[in-house]
């Protein structure tokens, strides 16, 4: 997949722009909502009327600081907004309020984990973050679709909505790393409720800087910057194309020109933008309408205390606490909503299991859980602690085999789950208690997703419950043995195979509801007696 770069090392840095999900804009009180009629979410401030003045939305600042903390970065007590001056119709003030010399966050790190297609760990590395800055977005230009109409229109709804620009150091060495970095960052932003991470709507996009240098060389090569990428595939393809293109240039003794590129997703190629912008001098200077921004140590401390558990921490905890595999742990922690769902269901399963346990003490531990079988243990014994992992694993299996196939990305982002987490928990507990079979679980899940009924209702209604009552099973077995006396005799005379047949018949007689372990134990006991 990667271009072969034996003689060159690929150096990649990303500038990610993420729209903050604050309710109001960065410097005025207009709403940030999407999809309104053009130029409706506007006021004198974001329209850039003369005399109107910006007032910082503190909530945006807090979100930026939160990201800084999550990136283990340096959240600066003092930061400064500056004006980036340029003329363009989408910028009504003719400058953008941004941060340059003193961003809210300087320095940070984002660990990324490269895995193969099966989810097995390949390697991990840390990508250094150079800065996180807060800035306002520009408006949108719309050009007439009819070529004879030489008119453009400006929609300023988006103007002055808050953006975070997250600039990495050139620490990535392959397209895969870059994509993984982008994904990890996106996950983090969603986890922290900083951004909706919606890439189609452009709330998250990135500029990709790519350069090549001879292996072993310290100095960076000349880079190109591919602008406005908002798909994982696009990022991957654009980088691959730039690598091939730059490599060909360098091999033929030509030079890479430092320029801004645009990626065409139809051709899979990058093309230089008109280089006019390159020479532009933005004449940055501190915005005199906004004083230095102070973010106190106390504020930072309270943010720290309120910091939610981050995806990486969850991943490790799932592995340690629930003994999930890397694959499962990564899957369950891949989204904040899914992780919440998983944790909720697991907790529910454990609670139900414990509740039911005293009555069930004597019954079989379960269908086929290896750990459970070797230690059918009480809660207080060390082995009892394994009950959590066992239930979590069942929850995880139910999620990955049943739930995820019904869940689109969008529904996941909106936490629109087809089946409540409690129900998954309840099913996991029943599985673990041997009350239902996997096949029954499938059926229950389907019924849950199609109706509003609870697990109990479905179980009752459809009789989806394993028969664990020994007397009832003995009655079934007695009848089967009587009906198939010859086969029973065969077994007794040494035909081990006959046992399977008898179990099958007994299961059939129970309409598949016999608890399989108990059933085979009864048959064995009866035949051996």
């Amino acid at each position, binding site marked *: 997949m990667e271009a072969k770069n034996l003689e060159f090392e690929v150096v990649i840095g990303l500038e990610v722009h993420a729209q903050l999900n604050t309710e109001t804009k960065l410097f005025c009180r207009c709403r940030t909502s999407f999809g309104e009629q053009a130029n409706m979410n506007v006021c004198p401030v974001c329209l850039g009327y003369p*005399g109107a003045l910006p007032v910082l939305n503190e909530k945006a600042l807090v979100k930026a600081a939160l990201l800084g903390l999550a990136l283990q970065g340096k959240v600066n007590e003092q930061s400064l907004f500056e004006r980036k*001056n340029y003329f363009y119709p989408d910028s009504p003030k003719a400058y953008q309020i941004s941060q340059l010399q003193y961003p809210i966050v300087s320095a940070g790190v984002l660990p990324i984990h490269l895995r193969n297609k099966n989810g097995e760990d390949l390697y991990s590395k840390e990508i250094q973050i150079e800065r996180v800055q807060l800035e306002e977005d520009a408006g949108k230009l719309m050009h007439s679709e009819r070529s004879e109409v030489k008119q453009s229109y400006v929609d300023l709804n988006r103007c002055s909505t808050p953006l975070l620009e997250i600039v990495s150091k050139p620490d990535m060495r392959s397209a895969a790393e870059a994509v993984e970095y982008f994904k990890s960052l996106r996950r983090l932003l969603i986890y922290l409720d900083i951004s909706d991470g919606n890439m189609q709507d452009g709330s998250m996009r990135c500029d990709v800087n790519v350069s090549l240098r001879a292996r072993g060389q310290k100095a960076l090569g000349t880079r190109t910057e591919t602008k406005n990428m908002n798909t994982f595939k696009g990022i991957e393809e654009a980088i691959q194309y730039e690598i091939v293109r730059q490599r060909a240039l360098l091999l033929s003794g030509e030079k890479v020109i430092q320029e801004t590129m645009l990626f065409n997703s139809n051709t899979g190629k990058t093309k230089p933008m008109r280089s006019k912008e390159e020479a532009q*001098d933005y*004449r940055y*200077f501190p915005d005199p309408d906004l004083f230095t921004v102070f973010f106190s140590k106390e504020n930072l401390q309270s943010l720290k205390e309120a910091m939610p558990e981050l995806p990486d921490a969850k991943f490790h905890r799932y592995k340690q606490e629930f003994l999930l595999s890397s694959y499962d742990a990564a899957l369950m922690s891949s989204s904040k909503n899914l992780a919440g769902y998983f944790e909720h269901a697991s907790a529910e399963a454990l609670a139900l299991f414990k509740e039911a346990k005293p009555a069930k003490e004597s019954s079989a531990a379960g269908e086929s859980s290896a750990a459970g079988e070797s230690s059918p243990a009480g809660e207080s014994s060390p082995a009892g602690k394994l009950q959590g992992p066992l239930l979590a694993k069942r929850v995880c299996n139910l999620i990955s085999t049943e739930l995820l196939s019904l869940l689109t990305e969008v529904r996941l982002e909106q936490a629109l789950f087809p089946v409540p987490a409690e129900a998954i928990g309840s099913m996991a507990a029943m599985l673990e208690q041997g009350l239902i079979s996997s096949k029954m679980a499938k059926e229950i899940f389907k019924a849950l997703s199609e109706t509003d009924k609870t697990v109990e209702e479905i179980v009752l209604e459809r009789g989806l419950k394993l028969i664990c009552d020994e007397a009832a099973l003995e009655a079934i077995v007695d009848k089967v043995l009587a009906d198939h006396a010859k086969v029973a005799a065969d077994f007794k005379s040494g035909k081990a195979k006959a046992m399977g047949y008898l179990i099958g018949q007994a299961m059939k007689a129970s309409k598949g509801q016999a608890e399989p372990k108990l059933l085979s134990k009864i048959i064995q006991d009866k035949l051996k007696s």
Partner: protein
Amino acid sequence: MTKETGLRPENTVSELHRLSLFAIVKLLKKKELTVKELLECYLQRLEEDERQPRESRINAVVYKNKEEALKQAANAPADSLLGGAPIIIKENLHLLGYPVRCASKILSNYKATYSSTAMLRLLKNGASIFATANMDEFAMGSANENSMHGFVCNPLAKDYIPGGSSGGPAAAVAGYFTSASIGSDTGGSIRQPAACCGVIGLKPTYGRVSRYGLVAFASSFDQIGPIARRVEDIALLLEAMAGHDEADSTSAKLPVPSYSKALETPIKNLHIALPKEYLGDTVHPQIRRAFMQAVDFYEKQGAKISEVSLPNTDYALSIYYILSTAEASSNLARFDGIRYGNPSKKAENLSDLFFRSRSEGFGDEVKRRIFTGSYVLSAGYYDDYYMKALKARRVVYDKYMAILKDADLLMMPTLPYRVFKRGKDHEDPTEMYRSDVFNVAANVVGLPSMSLPCAKDSLGLPISFQFMGRPFDEALMLRAAYLYQQEHGLPVFENAK
């Protein structure tokens, strides 16, 4: 010297225009005067002026709105501070529905679609705003000669400048077209024209009055302030406008004292410092003499007078011109010919459109400052100019604050020169810039400053002095000025040449 009394002149309606704001408020409240008759008096005077030939037309006012003013007065809350009293505002202040042309061609069609905080506060406190005043284009100038509306004459002597950039507001007050007006001061733009026209002007501490709705020239220097003929009028208007505004991040979260009530509070142990750099050879002898007489007055009133040194005075001017033009170049960039002004018909593409529309829309002085500002911010020059000026600003501020630790007020002439004749500044704009030296310091350091007339020169033109005070202590300046007005009296200029 005569005093304007608080009473309605006995004789005729024709004397109504002489009433001070304070007197007007009193009479309105006692129902001895109506806003309508007062407005008609002012408007009649304005119409008279409009009939004058250009050379003798004062041309202070560029827009009138009697109906709206009457409505505002009718809506004035009962027991409001100003009781419906009519005033005039500079043409760079937003009041819903009023043109905000800033005397610039590029804003010739621009009307306010929102109101500035200061104007809303004035209305809430019972002011009625019946006219807007001429000014230098985008408040850049010291003679009110850079205006799409044409020059303004000094009402005291029509071939002299009224000062700038609030030449219109100052001339309107001096010409008795209103009792008071609102101007803006970026580098002396209230105090210098007040001094030229023989009236009083106050620039509040930076952050005292909200800038929301004032078309920005240089955001870290601009302040809105009052111009009037009487100290108590200045106090009333400042009280009506001042205070924290959530819409202006640079406005101070501090309580506003009742300036008008504090005026008569005696000042004990007043310590006035005289910076010797402001009394050097550049100061005209007549001005120096008049100034020292004013100093003597305070000494006789028991004030301690001391001489201090402010060796950074010269830097203040450089700091001012570097930082204010830098900010202006960015503040004025939004006027691109698309949203404001007329898009040039000759334009071939987008950047050509910006270029041509701006070239056609801005006057020379504004262009000069945009060039200067863009230059000091450009790559390679930023550190040498902008950054250095920013650092120097801090140094100068510290120096002033050190002196104001001991001294309560700084006192200096408002202008080192006598009032200029019109048409003089066209030859060398830097000469005009240099004359700002006495005024820009207050804006560079953000301190409050107030100018009041104290004498006439040999031509009968005004000589003024100014105070600078501690941050947010406008009250003390007002009390000191009030003392002068009451015990010494202010010169009256109706017989000026």
